[in-house]
């Protein structure tokens, strides 16, 4: 056990100026909320972009009012051009993956709750923490800028495969300045996330309060800890990769461009680079990245479920070990994105086995969740509904992974809508459900007011049905061979599938509109919601032992002491069926590993 009750955290008094309080704040809670706000803006942008894509895919010649204002090469008559479709798709994915899925479950919630969960009064390096947010913010602005510079953002997809991304403007609109801006933004983003991870890890290792052993950390904090370790090792690969990409543009190097390429009848002035090098570097980051997106969601969902089931998970440790296994394996499976990419076919087989292996920890996690539901006293509220929805989504997405883990089946399904369905269920929608669940659950603590639970439930129902309607049919499209990243379906065998696309588009517009309920609920509750009590859900972890919202130093000058495992539910204590972590009370039947 670690005794750090003397508080090694950089101690800083409450700020007095507006700027220090709300803008360049050193307080991890303010930084967490800033991250949340950034994620909210990004998710709105990402979603509007997805509507534009969906409308175009279903009704290709249909004008979308105002579209030309956004397009660097013009959307003649407001009809989308092929390059603009791909630019929108790339930006949709970039905003979603980096500025929503990395930012919200990890950086926003993590910043707010990780120090409280560990019993610290702030992050170990508050200045770095502040810089982490503002660096990410700069990255976000740079990325937005790309809509308005030159012929628009890059069209290369969030994966930015070379040499398309590395040869410059000859390769298409957005491939000159667009790529440079993209790579710059992402490199800056990586720096921001590294700053974040460098706070999270020492916080967990060194700033735990008295009595807080590692196994007494709640699930989300374990998840953020594991995620930080992944972030540290994967963002630090992506950043140099982006720099090499920029060098190929501006310094005449050829890291990713092979010799003798001819584009537009012009022999390219590059030689000796490797096409596959980028893919290896990118996916070495990219696969851990999808776990960076989802693991915090797993932690949040476990936390929410436990509180609402009124009983602990079957095994805290098995969940933690499984998440750790996911993290470790995620570096060994990245080759499954490259089965047919021209890697040695023997490597494809080698990569397929860890990929199949990773289904085991995933299955364990799902089974532990489901098994834990057994004998629960499940409370239904918006937070728990989204947590249950998360499990359902994760099962659906995981099952399609069985297919994609096999090189032989990828011959049929690689780069089709089956893949789009798979990653939207696992990474995108599941993670989004994790975010919603966390928001409904923690909103009272973060903003000191309750959200409207009925609106939250309505939001859940319409979203749950909506996302299944959007993404389930994409599996069928993939089976039928519908290739992804197509802006229109001019291939003969794909034309009969347009009807399915129209169905999906209607579902997407519906689901998108439903999100207005959430936004209304969020804003309304933020200002006019009922004041939240300290512990509205009868939770046990430390965030529920402090006022809502917590004071500047989290614990009001006290040094918390922890006596129990994080999840003492289903016991008979003086407070009811639960026992707070910092309660010195000893009760019978508590499972309490020291």
């Amino acid at each position, binding site marked *: 056990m670690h005794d750090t009750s003397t508080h090694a955290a950089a101690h800083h008094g409450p700020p007095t100026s507006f700027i220090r309080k709300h803008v360049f704040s050193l307080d991890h809670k303010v930084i967490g909320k800033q991250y949340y706000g950034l994620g909210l803006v990004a998710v709105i942008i990402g979603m509007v972009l997805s509507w534009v894509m969906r409308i175009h895919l279903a009704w290709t010649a249909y004008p979308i009012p105002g579209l030309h204002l956004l397009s660097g090469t013009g959307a003649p008559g407001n009809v989308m051009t092929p390059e603009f479709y791909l630019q929108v798709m790339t930006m949709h994915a970039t905003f979603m993956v980096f500025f929503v899925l990395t930012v919200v479950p990890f950086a926003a919630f993590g910043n707010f709750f990780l120090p409280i969960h560990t019993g610290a009064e702030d992050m170990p390096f508050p200045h770095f923490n502040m810089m982490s947010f503002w660096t990410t913010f700069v990255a976000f602005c740079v990325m937005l800028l790309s809509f308005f510079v030159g012929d628009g953002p890059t069209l290369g997809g969030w994966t930015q495969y070379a040499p398309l991304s590395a040869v410059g403007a000859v390769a*298409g609109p957005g491939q000159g300045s667009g790529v440079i801006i993209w790579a710059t933004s992402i490199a800056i983003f990586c720096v921001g996330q590294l700053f974040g991870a460098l706070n999270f890890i020492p916080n967990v290792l060194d700033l735990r309060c008295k009595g807080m052993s590692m196994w007494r950390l709640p699930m989300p904090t374990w998840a953020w800890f594991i995620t930080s370790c992944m972030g540290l090792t994967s963002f630090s690969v992506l950043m140099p990769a982006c720099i090499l990409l920029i060098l190929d543009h501006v310094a005449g190097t050829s890291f990713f461009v092979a010799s003798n390429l001819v584009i537009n009848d012009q022999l390219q002035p590059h030689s000796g680079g490797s096409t596959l090098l980028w893919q290896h570097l990118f996916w070495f980051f990219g696969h851990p990245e999808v776990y960076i997106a989802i693991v915090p969601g797993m932690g949040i969902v476990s936390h929410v479920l436990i509180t609402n089931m*009124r009983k602990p998970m079957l095994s805290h440790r098995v969940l933690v070990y499984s998440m750790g296994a996911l993290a470790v394996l995620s570096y060994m499976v990245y080759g499954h994105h490259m089965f047919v990419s*021209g890697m040695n076919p023997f490597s494809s087989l080698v990569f397929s086995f860890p990929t199949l292996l990773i289904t085991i920890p995933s*299955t364990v996690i799902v*089974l532990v969740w489901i098994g834990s539901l057994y004998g629960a*006293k499940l409370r239904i509220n918006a937070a728990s509904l989204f947590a249950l929805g998360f499990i359902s989504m994760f099962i659906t997405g995981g099952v399609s992974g069985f297919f994609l883990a*096999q090189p032989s089946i990828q011959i049929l399904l690689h780069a089709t809508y089956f893949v789009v369905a798979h990653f939207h269920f696992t990474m995108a929608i599941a993670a989004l459900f994790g975010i919603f669940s966390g928001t409904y659950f923690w909103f009272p603590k973060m903003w000191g007011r309750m959200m409207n639970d009925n609106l939250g439930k309505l939001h859940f129902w319409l979203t749950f049905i909506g996302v299944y309607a959007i993404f389930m049919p994409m599996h*069928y499209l993939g089976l*039928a061979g519908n290739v992804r990243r197509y802006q229109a379906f001019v291939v003969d065998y794909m034309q009969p599938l347009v009807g399915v696309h129209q169905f999906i588009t209607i579902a997407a517009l519906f689901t998108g509109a439903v999100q207005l309920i959430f936004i209304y609920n969020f804003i309304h509750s933020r200002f006019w919601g009922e004041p939240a009590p300290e512990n509205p859900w009868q939770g046990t972890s430390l965030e529920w032992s402090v006022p809502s919202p917590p004071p500047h130093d989290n614990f009001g000058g006290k040094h918390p002491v922890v006596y129990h495992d994080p999840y003492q539910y289903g016991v008979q204590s003086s407070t009811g069926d639960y026992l707070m972590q910092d309660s010195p009370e000893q009760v019978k039947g508590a499972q309490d590993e020291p």
Partner: protein
Amino acid sequence: MAKLLAVTIVVIAILSAIPIIRNTWHPLPDVSAHGQAIDDQLSETMWEAGISFLASQIILAWFIWRYSGNRPGEKTKTFPGGATGLVAAAVILVGVEVFALGIFGVKAWANIYFTPPGADAMPVQVQAGQFAFYFRYTGPDGTFGAIHPEMLSEANQNFYGIDTDHDSDAKDDIVTAEMAVPVNREIRLLMHSKDVSHSFYVPALRIHQDFVPGLDLQIHFTATKVGRYEIVCSQLCGLGHYNMKAYLSVLSQDDFDAWLKKQAALQ
């Protein structure tokens, strides 16, 4: 409300499974010699994944139905066997299931990638470029002329950059925009990209392979049914990606010979 959620999950799971069971959308019918193994693998996986999907969604729904609400007087219970049982189940069931899939899948993969083409396989070259495929046949001499990237000119329809004036190997090369192959004849496909990454995806032939600029790859296949199929690009290659395609005609040997003669005349 928990009961409603349980029902919704079950309904969604069943609705999702119906198109699969009824085979409403399915891969294009297979016309390759090696494709059966892939299709078997797919349907095997479909069974196992389908059962896992339905089973887990239904159990999830059942537990939500059964264990929701604050049932006064009742105490929370633990799943019989605890986590150990579930971990064992996961490792045994999923591990075995999935590894079995993996190991059988190797066969389908090895069929394509680890068996060398026969010595009499017919060589055809395919070149991918933004945004079209061009194919090349050796002509009577059985050899391809060398590629000179600096001579490549779409404006002059020298799509491969071959020197027909000076290179005797290149003189009889036949370059086409459509691919044709004789039925039941093994084809050795040489894949070359002139610019960026592309992919050669022929769903009907169960073939999918990316082009790697700077690295020429080779695959082989045999088409078993006369017909006209489509080759599409599945690797994002630029704005015209969606329209990067070509037709593949599988012809009887006589028709193929006639076709090739006609193409030769057009050079």
